[in-house]
């Protein structure tokens, strides 16, 4: 399992933490103590490290039975720290392989320098850099999610949403209370797809931690994604407001670069087909790209088709150009991809330019449009 993963960063407390447990396992308690002291020196507010230190000290005076041997300890707090230890070690030991990418990042726009992918099951946030269209791993951080986990459905359910979002703003430390630490980046929950599926709520942010806290338990927020302040600060440098995608998943699906390439090419081809069928003025061929479940500009497929057939008669030529395409797959079991692009439409009697957002869903093996509108 210890294959070469040199490209992945060893920043953060995980390497030291893993060492501490490694030494405990080997019964080298003196070394474990040295390393936990180092850990506390680097991260003085890291509660998990203090708990381990407590156990190591207590072990010198009497046999200890469990993780966190505190008399009258609040059991939930011990359990939280235990969960944090497991989450951190787990993510550290099972770092993604370098030749694999999250399936969701099918196509980043040229101007999207970074993308963020969250794995709620692993309590981990991964940062990818856009390297000429290929996502390249940059860093990963421990995160806290909603008290009741992921898959947000409604306001106040204390869950973190799962889906394709982007950063919509930036709130500075000065504007917020200490609770949010270094600051906050609101994200675009609920998105078009959420709204269509009846999901509601608001105020889902990525944010920091209070000044007396290094990190919070894996499940502790009201639905926000919470990072350690130093991690938040590092992340801030890469954030482009209104642009940086934030994709939150239950459990990231990883694809080899080959598989990823195949998936994106297949969808790209389909989008290109849609574009050229539109230009062909063969309205039925064009409409064959739309799903029975289509909702576009408030119209269903029948209404949409009727309108398209109606305007088709007056066209002697159509030119459609699509630029700046982004394609982000929605985490979950449906083959659903959010596609955005700049559309330049020219025809004999109408011309317009717009930003467009479509959702493509694979139905019986074919990609079809289930949602279309201004992006």
């Amino acid at each position, binding site marked *: 399992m210890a294959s070469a993963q040199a490209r992945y960063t060893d920043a953060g407390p995980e390497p030291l933490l893993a060492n501490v*447990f490694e030494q405990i396992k080997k019964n080298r308690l003196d070394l474990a103590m040295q390393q936990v002291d180092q850990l506390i020196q680097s991260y003085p507010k890291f509660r998990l490290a203090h708990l381990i230190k*407590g156990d190591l*000290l207590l072990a010198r*005076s009497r046999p200890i039975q469990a993780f966190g041997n505190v008399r009258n300890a609040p059991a939930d707090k011990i359990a939280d720290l235990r969960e944090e230890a497991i989450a951190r070690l*787990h993510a550290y030991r099972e770092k993604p392989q370098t030749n694999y990418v999250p399936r969701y990042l099918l196509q980043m726009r040229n101007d999207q320098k970074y993308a963020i992918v969250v794995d709620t099951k692993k309590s981990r946030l991964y940062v990818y850099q856009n390297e000429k269209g290929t996502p390249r791993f940059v860093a990963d951080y421990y995160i806290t999610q909603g008290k009741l986990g992921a898959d947000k459905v409604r306001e106040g359910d204390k869950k973190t949403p799962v889906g394709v979002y982007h950063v919509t703003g930036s709130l500075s430390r000065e504007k917020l209370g200490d609770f949010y630490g270094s600051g906050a980046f609101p994200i675009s929950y609920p998105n078009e797809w959420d709204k269509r599926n009846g999901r509601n709520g608001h105020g889902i942010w990525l944010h920091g931690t209070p000044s007396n806290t290094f990190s919070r338990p894996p499940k502790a927020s009201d639905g926000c994604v919470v990072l350690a302040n130093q991690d938040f600060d590092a992340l801030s440098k890469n954030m482009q407001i209104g642009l940086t995608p934030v994709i939150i998943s239950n459990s990231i699906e990883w694809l080899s670069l080959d598989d990823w390439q195949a998936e994106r090419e297949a969808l790209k081809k389909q989008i290109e087909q849609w574009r050229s069928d539109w230009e062909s003025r063969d309205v039925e061929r064009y409409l064959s790209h739309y799903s029975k479940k289509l909702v576009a500009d408030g119209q269903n497929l029948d209404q949409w088709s009727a309108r398209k057939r109606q305007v088709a008669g007056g066209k002697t030529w159509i030119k459609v150009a699509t630029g700046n395409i982004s394609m982000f797959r929605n985490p979950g079991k449906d083959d659903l991809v959010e596609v955005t692009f700049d559309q330049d439409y020219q025809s004999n009697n109408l011309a317009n330019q717009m930003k467009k957002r479509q959702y493509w869903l694979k139905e019986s093996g074919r990609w079809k449009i289930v949602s279309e509108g201004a992006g």
Partner: protein
Amino acid sequence: MSDRRFFLAAPLASGLMLAFAFLIGPAYADTLQDINKLLKQGQHSQALEKTEQYLSGKPKDAQGRFLKGLILTEMNRPQEAIVVFTKLTEDYPELPEPYNNLAVIYAQQKQYDKAKQSLEMAIRTHPSYATAHENLGDIYARMASQSYDKALQIDSANASAQNKLAMIRELMTASSRPAAAKPSLLAAAKAQVAAILPASKEDKPAESKPATPVAAPAPTPASESKPVVGGETNGEISKALEGWMAAWSKKNVKGYLGYYAKDFQTPGGESRAHWESDRAKRINKPGTIQVSFENLKVTLDNGSNARATVKFRQHYRSASLKTSSNKVLVMVKRDGKWQIQQERVGK
């Protein structure tokens, strides 16, 4: 201070006679006995007065200075007591008792690092000194408690009545000290510390056993699994995979689902029923399905021959989709049958 644990090893008189026959002349023994009596009776000022008188004639005398330190401690004048005991450790570095008593005072002031250092010195001068060992244990427990307070953001100081550390009341000669080395607490503690490893409850195969306290440390790091190349298991698993894929390809949903363990972890964490109906829907889609695998790699989980991580390349072809992907299964053997507990795409 009244409830302090006293460490009185030998009857006072004989102890003292024995102890300092070589340091002090017999003539002074009576005075020291008197002082001790006063101290025991709680007549601190008289005891102190008498000690000062005694020391004016013998300013270097260890026994007198030691008593002075005790009296000052009893009188709740810790700073002066610290000075007395510290000087004693400088003049008589081979004596463990002043170090021990210094530690007790430091501990009262919550200066645990200093207390610990003093006790370590006491033990260095006399490695089997039981009181110092016990006190050091208490110091560690208090330091642990401080760490726990920081970890849990609580204040346990009031919640738990802490043991008082033991002051040593007498100076003894080396020969009169308890000879038997105390069985090391550390050994016992060490054997148990494995218990604090946070054993994962899920998908960390190598660590999924709750750590047994006394388990011998594994010779290899426990997080590594041993690959098993050997025949039987590999064959069994390969067979199970073939059966699973055959049921899949034949669209035998019941047979297919039968290859999943009762506690199979559904990919999105959804309910088993939901997952099953979803699988059934997909498998029952029109058109043929063909599933096969190659490059099978089976890794038995450490210390188990009923749980394995199974990796292979899966080729899947249906009417609408043809893919090859790397699959990872965690399989468990139940009633002689290998079943799938986890299934994921990827590395």
